[in-house]
């Protein structure tokens, strides 16, 4: 007897809607949930490897407690009771000595984080943070400083766009299924695509214009573009007059940054820059300048992203088909929202966050926090000691720079608990590993789905767990109970949680059965374009934001040339391919076959100078840190840079299929934990240099 269960993929943080067919107790088929028209039955390679992940024996199959030194790989199998007892005993000791504030928690954010935030709040700590410091923080803060809205305050209608401009946003490989389908439709409808990246990714091969920009000079290119657009009046004057504040100041600021100046800085010809500006002027308002996704890259990425956000305003591309639009929430459809699980939990006594967001770094969002500045607190014990760290499906040891330095900092912690479905490098260095069910084996809390037709979505358990694993909601409600905080998370079943979440809506849980999600609006909701609102103090798009300036963040920062690689060195660039994310799938039985080892991309002329031929093995080094890799010699990379895919070179021997294969990029990023953008908040992890040597 076959049945179909609608759920939400958990193979990566995009979390696409899926449909799973189950026969008896076996999952037999998975595809995209085609009730969602933008999704159809499509599913990416990672989603396709769902069943393979479930059956993979090289994953934690039961709770584990460390017996040897940290990272040594000596574990004992434990029951859930033993693991919970071990954690609560340690935690109680830490709390009695240092207070609940000494507990910190990080995860990958997203729509299911509400429960984990509630757990941290229930314990009495203000220190929840997510992964975003090495992802979209710069973009988010840039967006807030201009629109007063976070980076998710706008979505992009690629399908109907006339021109899509991507500064390194590798949309076909760091892929979201619905987004890339829209992008490809846009391309086949004849959209112009301008792709800017020192490396020609697969996205470059879909572009109508490709600029191999000098590494770290995006901001200069953007200044040159904006200079010309403003000077030649190639923008939407009506929109700017109505909504943008501070254009005269922008004009004055941009004076020195001519296209000719930009050419010298970036290597992109002034003529091409000017031609591009005229083209976008013809194409507007259906023009999308993507402000960046993962933009923890250079020391001025925040300012580059700000300039992109401003260009969208100049194009007048807001709230139009083919441009940017506001993702609408339940309120826009006249409904209440999902009630937050932490809503009725009293705020922790300690108001100051260990990572300093909102205090020593007043401009940074408290919601996502910043892990690398929480490390400052672990190191110094200030503003107070940090002693316990919960990690949920996050892998800081490879997501943040300099694994060795992070381990040294973590050694100051008295308890590290990692919950995950696979052996992440961070789990391997923890004291306790709690195996979460794979996503088809677990229910999650309901999520809000913003968009033109807002609604709610449900991840539903499709099959029984294959291992001795538990769903996250059960792990954290049980831990809260054992810590004497059960009154704040008093749920015995997922249905109780769902019911709590839906209490301010007219939606019933059975409403999700038909399609897997519930829409609150029949037709797309568009705002009146004459009455747009922004979250700034003036309600306008602010080119100069006084609030941020008062916090010490300059709005229009003069350009400084990046420190390029010293003679004989290269900037180390990294990225993804379409069939893995964040190093999570390198050991998947199916995907591991496709990944093998990563290659080092090096420019043809540079390789020749070093006596390196395509396919040769070379040594890559930064100080004493070294690795050996095979090369891909190509003109698809700028002469000043080398590139590798991220997530390789694991130090976890339990991942037998991927152990010893390839080289990790983050190990070369020495000193980058403390080298971060003081305006945007993210580490400058692409400002890292390596030497390459032929192996004879």
């Amino acid at each position, binding site marked *: 007897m076959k049945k179909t269960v609608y759920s939400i993929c958990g193979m990566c943080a995009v979390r696409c809607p899926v449909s799973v067919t189950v026969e008896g107790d076996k999952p037999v088929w998975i595809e995209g949930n085609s009730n969602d028209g933008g999704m159809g039955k499509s599913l990416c390679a990672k989603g396709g490897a769902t069943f393979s992940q479930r059956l993979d024996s090289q994953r934690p199959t039961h709770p584990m407690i460390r017996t040897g030194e940290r990272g040594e790989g000596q574990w004992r199998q434990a029951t859930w009771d033993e693991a919970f007892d071990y954690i609560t005993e340690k935690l109680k000791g830490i709390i009695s000595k240092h207070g609940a504030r000494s507990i910190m928690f990080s995860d990958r954010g997203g729509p299911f984080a509400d429960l984990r935030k509630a757990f941290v709040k229930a314990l009495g700590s203000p220190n929840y943070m997510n992964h975003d410091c090495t992802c979209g923080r710069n973009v988010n803060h840039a967006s807030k400083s201009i629109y007063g809205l976070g980076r998710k305050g706008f979505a992009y209608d690629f399908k109907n766009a006339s021109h899509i401009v991507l500064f390194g946003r590798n949309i076909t490989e760091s892929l979201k299924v619905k987004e890339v389908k829209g992008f490809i439709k846009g*391309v086949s409808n004849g959209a112009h695509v301008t792709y800017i990246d020192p490396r020609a990714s697969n996205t470059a091969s879909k572009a109508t214009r490709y600029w191999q920009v000098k590494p770290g000079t995006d901001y200069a290119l953007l200044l040159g573009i904006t200079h010309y657009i403003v000077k030649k009046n190639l923008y939407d004057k009506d929109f700017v007059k109505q909504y943008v504040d501070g254009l005269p100041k922008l004009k004055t600021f941009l004076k020195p940054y001519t296209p000719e100046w930009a050419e010298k800085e970036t290597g992109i010809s002034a003529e091409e820059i000017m031609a591009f500006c005229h083209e976008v002027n013809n194409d507007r308002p259906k023009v999308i300048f993507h402000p960046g996704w993962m933009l923890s890259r250079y020391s001025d990425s925040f300012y580059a992203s700000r300039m992109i956000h401003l260009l969208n305003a100049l194009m007048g591309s807001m709230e139009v088909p083919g441009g940017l639009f506001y993702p609408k929430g339940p309120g826009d459809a006249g409904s209440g929202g999902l009630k937050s699980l932490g809503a009725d939990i009293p705020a922790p006594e300690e108001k100051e966050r260990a990572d300093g967001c909102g205090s020593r770094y007043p401009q940074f969002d408290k919601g996502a926090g910043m892990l690398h500045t929480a490390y400052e607190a672990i190191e110094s014990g200030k503003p107070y000691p940090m002693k316990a760290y919960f990690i949920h499906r996050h892998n800081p040891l490879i997501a943040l720079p300099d694994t060795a330095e992070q381990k040294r900092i973590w050694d100051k912690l008295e308890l590290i608990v990692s919950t995950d479905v696979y052996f992440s490098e961070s789990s391997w260095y923890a004291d306790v590993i709690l195996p979460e069910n794979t996503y088809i084996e677990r229910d999650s809390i309901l999520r809000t789905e913003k968009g033109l037709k807002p609604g709610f979505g449900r991840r539903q358990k499709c099959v029984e767990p294959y291992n001795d694993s538990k769903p996250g909601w059960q792990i954290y409600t049980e831990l809260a109970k054992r810590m004497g905080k059960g009154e704040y998370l008093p749920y015995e079943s997922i249905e109780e949680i769902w019911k709590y979440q839906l209490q301010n809506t007219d939606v019933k849980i059975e409403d999700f059965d038909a399609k897997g999600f519930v829409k609150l609006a029949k037709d797309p909701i568009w705002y009146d374009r004459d009455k747009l609102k922004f979250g700034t103090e003036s309600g306008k798009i602010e080119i100069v934001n006084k609030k941020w300036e008062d916090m010490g963040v300059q709005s229009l920062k003069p350009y400084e040339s990046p420190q390029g690689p010293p003679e004989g060195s290269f900037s180390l660039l990294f990225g993804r391919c379409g069939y893995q994310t964040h190093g999570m799938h390198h050991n998947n039985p199916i995907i591991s076959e496709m990944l093998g080892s990563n290659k080092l991309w090096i420019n043809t002329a540079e390789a020749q100078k070093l006596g390196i031929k395509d396919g040769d093995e070379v040594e890559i080094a930064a100080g004493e840190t070294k690795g050996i890799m095979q090369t891909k010699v190509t003109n698809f990379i700028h002469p000043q840079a080398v590139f590798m895919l991220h997530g390789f070179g694991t130090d976890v021997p339990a991942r037998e299929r991927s152990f010893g294969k390839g080289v990790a990029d983050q190990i070369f990023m020495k000193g980058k934990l403390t080298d971060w953008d003081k305006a945007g908040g993210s580490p400058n992890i692409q400002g890292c240099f390596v030497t390459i040597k032929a192996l004879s």
Partner: protein
Amino acid sequence: MSKYIVTQNVADCIGCKACEVHCKDKNDPGEGAFFCKMMEVESDSGKLPSRDFVYMACFHCEKPWCVDACPTGAMQRRDKDGIVFVQESLCVGCKACIVACPWGVPQWKASTGKVDKCDLCKDRIDEGLEPACVTKCTTNCLTFSVVGNVSDTRRQDFAEQLMQNRK
């Protein structure tokens, strides 16, 4: 040739290898074997980067070299629709089909010491469905159809393109 054909719109393909994974997940060809595979080709000499991914599975020939080469009758052509498939119980692992096929289609399954290959997910076709690779292609760049329809579809696409270019 079988009455069916899988065509690929290369311009829409992003090289995400979802087709390979969906095939492996459904058909379990074993380690190192791929019933369908995306072959990457690139040229860095032009003004714009060109990198294409070309879908290679099985053409299900009208007069298949592999079937002719098979000494045991394991490699067969299904009468009703011409799908070329392996009857595993008859395969002796001689590899003659691998040598014979001009496109390297038959795959070696190390765990069984036999050959296996793309059968267009004939169990799905018999249920009125499409092969796994086509059904779940990320960008819908793969199309499953009956050979006779392909020509008209392509001619229509070309005509649409002419209209597009007039805009």
